[in-house]
C-alpha cells in the first residue's frame, strides 16, 4: 500500500493526500485553494498516482475545500491529464459542482490546431522570409515613389484633386508652427559651432574666424540638416500617424471607393506643404544659427560686433546659401515621402500606427543623412 501526501509547509492553507481505496485511489483535498495561496504543482500528485498499486480508478473527495478559484481548476485539469496518461479511469463526482461545470465548459470546444506556438522556423526559413519581406518593402517603396511622381505631375499641370484648405493647413503646420523649435535648436547649434571652433582658433589668436566658421557651417550644412531632422521628427511622424489613423478608420478606403485618389487628396497637400516650407525654414535656421554664433563671438571672445558682421558677410557667398537650400528641398521631399509612405502602408491597428510613426522618423533620418553624404560628395566633385 502506498500513499502520497502534500509536502507543503504546515501553515499552508491547502492540503491534499492520496488515500488508497479498494479499486484505486481517492484524492482528498481540503482548505483554501486560491491562486495567491502558492498552490502545489500537479506533478507531485502525478508521482503519487504513478506509485498506486491498488487499481486504476481515481476518485475525488473535495468536501473539505473551503474556497477555490481558477488556480484550483488548473491544478485539477493537470491532475486529470496526468491520470489519463497513467491509464486511470476518473470519477469526477467528488469535485465541487462548480468545478465540474467549468471543466465541462472548458472541454466543450476542442482545442483547435491553429498552427501557432509551434517550434520556431529553422534559420534558413527565417532568412528566406526576411529576405522576401525586404524585397516586398523595396517594391512597395518603388510603387509609392511612382504614385508620388504621377501625383506631383498632376499637380504641376493643375489637375490634381485636393482641397486648398488642406494645403494651407499643412503649410501652416509645417511652417509657422515649427518656428519655435527651429529657432531654439538652430540657435544652440550656432552656439555650439562657435564654442567648438573658439577653443581651437584661440590658440592661433584667430578668434575672428569664428564668424566664417559659423556662417559657412550653418549655410552649407547645419541649417538644412537641423531643420530637416526637426521636421522628420515633428512633421514626418505626424504625417505617418495621421495617415495611419485614417487607414485604421477606413477614411482612406472611403476616398478610394468614392473615386477620389487618396494620394492626391491626402498625400499631395502634405508633401507640397513640407517641400515648400523646408527652404524657408532653412533660411530662417541659418540666420538664427549665425546669431547664436555671434552671441559667443561677441559676448565671450570679445570680437567686436561690427568686425563679426563684416567677416560673416565676406565669408558666405550666395553659392553657400544655394548649396544649403538645394539640400533642404531634397530633404523636404525625402521626409515627406518617408512620412506619407509609412502612413499609407500602415496596418489596421493602433500598434501599427505607432510602428508607422516610428518607422517614418527612422526612415526620414536615414534618408537625410545618406542623401546629405551623397550631395556633399557631388558638390565637391563639381566644385560647388
Amino acid at each position, binding site marked *: 500500500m502506498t500513499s502520497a501526501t502534500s509536502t507543503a509547509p504546515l501553515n499552508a492553507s491547502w492540503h491534499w493526500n492520496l488515500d488508497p481505496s479498494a479499486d484505486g485511489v481517492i484524492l482528498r483535498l481540503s482548505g483554501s485553494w486560491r491562486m495567491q495561496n502558492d498552490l502545489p504543482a500537479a506533478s507531485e500528485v502525478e508521482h503519487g498516482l504513478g506509485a498506486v498499486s491498488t487499481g486504476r480508478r481515481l476518485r475525488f473527495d473535495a468536501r473539505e475545500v473551503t474556497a477555490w478559484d481558477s488556480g484550483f481548476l488548473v491544478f485539477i485539469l493537470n491532475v486529470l491529464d496526468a491520470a489519463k496518461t497513467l491509464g486511470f479511469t476518473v470519477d469526477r463526482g467528488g469535485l465541487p459542482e462548480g468545478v465540474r461545470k467549468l471543466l465541462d465548459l472548458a472541454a466543450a470546444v476542442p482545442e483547435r490546431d491553429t498552427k501557432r506556438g509551434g517550434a520556431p522556423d529553422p534559420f534558413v526559413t527565417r532568412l528566406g522570409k526576411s529576405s522576401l519581406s525586404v524585397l516586398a518593402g523595396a517594391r512597395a517603396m518603388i510603387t509609392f515613389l511612382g504614385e508620388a511622381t504621377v501625383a506631383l505631375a498632376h499637380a504641376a499641370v493643375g489637375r490634381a*484633386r485636393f482641397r486648398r484648405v*488642406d494645403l494651407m*493647413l499643412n503649410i501652416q503646420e509645417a511652417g509657422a508652427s515649427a518656428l519655435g523649435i527651429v529657432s531654439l535648436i538652430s540657435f544652440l547649434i550656432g552656439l555650439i559651432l562657435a564654442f567648438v571652433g573658439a577653443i581651437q582658433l584661440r590658440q592661433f589668436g584667430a578668434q575672428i574666424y569664428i564668424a566664417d566658421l559659423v556662417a559657412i557651417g550653418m549655410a552649407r550644412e547645419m541649417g538644412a540638416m537641423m531643420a530637416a531632422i526637426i521636421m522628420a521628427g515633428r512633421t514626418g511622424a505626424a504625417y505617418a500617424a495621421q495617415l495611419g489613423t*485614417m487607414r485604421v*478608420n*477606413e*477614411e482612406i*478606403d*472611403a*476616398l*478610394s*471607393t*468614392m*473615386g*477620389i485618389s487618396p494620394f492626391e487628396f491626402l498625400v499631395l497637400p502634405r508633401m507640397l506643404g513640407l517641400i515648400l516650407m523646408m527652404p524657408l525654414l532653412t533660411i530662417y535656421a541659418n540666420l538664427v544659427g549665425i546669431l547664436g554664433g555671434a552671441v559667443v563671438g561677441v559676448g565671450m571672445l570679445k570680437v567686436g560686433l561690427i568686425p563679426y558682421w563684416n567677416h560673416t558677410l565676406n565669408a558666405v557667398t550666395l553659392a553657400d546659401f544655394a548649396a544649403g537650400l538645394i539640400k533642404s528641398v531634397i530633404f523636404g521631399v525625402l521626409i515627406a515621402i518617408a512620412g506619407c509612405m509609412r502612413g499609407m502602408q500602415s496596418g489596421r491597428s493602433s500598434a501599427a500606427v505607432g510602428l508607422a510613426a516610428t518607422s517614418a522618423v527612422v526612415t526620414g533620418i536615414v534618408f537625410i543623412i545618406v542623401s546629405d553624404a551623397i550631395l556633399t560628395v557631388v558638390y565637391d566633385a563639381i566644385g560647388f
Partner: protein
Amino acid sequence: MTPSASSGEAEPRIRVVGLTMAYGDFVIQHDLTFDVTRGEVFIIMGGSGCGKSTLLRHLIGLIRPSKGEVFFDGASFWGADDERRQLMLRRFGVLYQSGALWSSMTLAENVGLPLGEFTDLSPSQIREIASLKLSLVGLGGFEDFYPSEISGGMQKRAGLARAMALDPDILFLDEPSAGLDPVSSRLLDDLILQLRDSLKCTVVVVTHELASIFTIADDSVYLDAETRTMLVQGNPRTLLAESKNPKIHAFLTRGGQESERAPAGNRSGVLPGGTA
C-alpha cells in the same frame, strides 16, 4: 429605349461569378456565385470571421479577387479600364463599419465633398444638398459639427448621408447596426427600407443581427466559416422555414433557441413542461 439599355435592365444589378478571396495562400472564401437583383435589400450574413466584410471590400473594388469576376449591370468590374472603373465606383455609396467620416471636415463638408468633386454645383447648392441628406438621416442642424463631436450612432448616420450624397444606384452597408442601441438600429432599418422604396436603390448589407436581417432582407447569401464558401442564397424567412441545413438553421435561430418566436409561443407565461 435602346435595345442595349433594355437588355441592361434584364441584367442583375450585381453578378458575382466564381469569386475566390485569399490573402496569399490563405483562402478566406472560394467559389462564391450569386446575383443581386436591382431594387432589393441583399444581406451578406454568416458567423464572425467568415469573410463577410472582406466580400464587401471585394465588391466595392478595394481588393482584387484572386479568382472570379464581379459584374455590375452586366459589365465586368476588373475587366474594365481604370476610367470606366472610376465611373462604376461613382455609382456606389459605401457606409463603412466605423462610419469612416473624414475627421478634418465638418459633417456638411463630408457629405458635400463627393458633390464638389463630381458635379458642377455651386458651393451654396452643395451645402443645401448636404443639409438635405443630413436631415434625411435625422442630423439636420449638425452641419457644422466635426465627426469627433458627435456620438458613434450619429457618425454612422452621417456616414450613411455621405454614402447617399451622389444618389448612388447601389448602397453598400458594412454592419450598419453594430454598436447601435436597439431603437437606433430599428430606425436605421426603417431608413434602409425607405431608401430602397423611394430611391429604388439596391442595398447590400453585411450584418449578423438577426432582428435586422428579418426586417429588411429581400434576399441573402450565407457564408460559412468552416467550408469557406457560401452555403445558400435566398430570403432568410424562406430559409428559416425550408432550409434543411443545420448550420443555417442554427444561425437564423441563435443556435436553435428559437428565440425569434419564443415570446409568441410563451405568451401564456406557461413553460413548455407546464410546471409554472
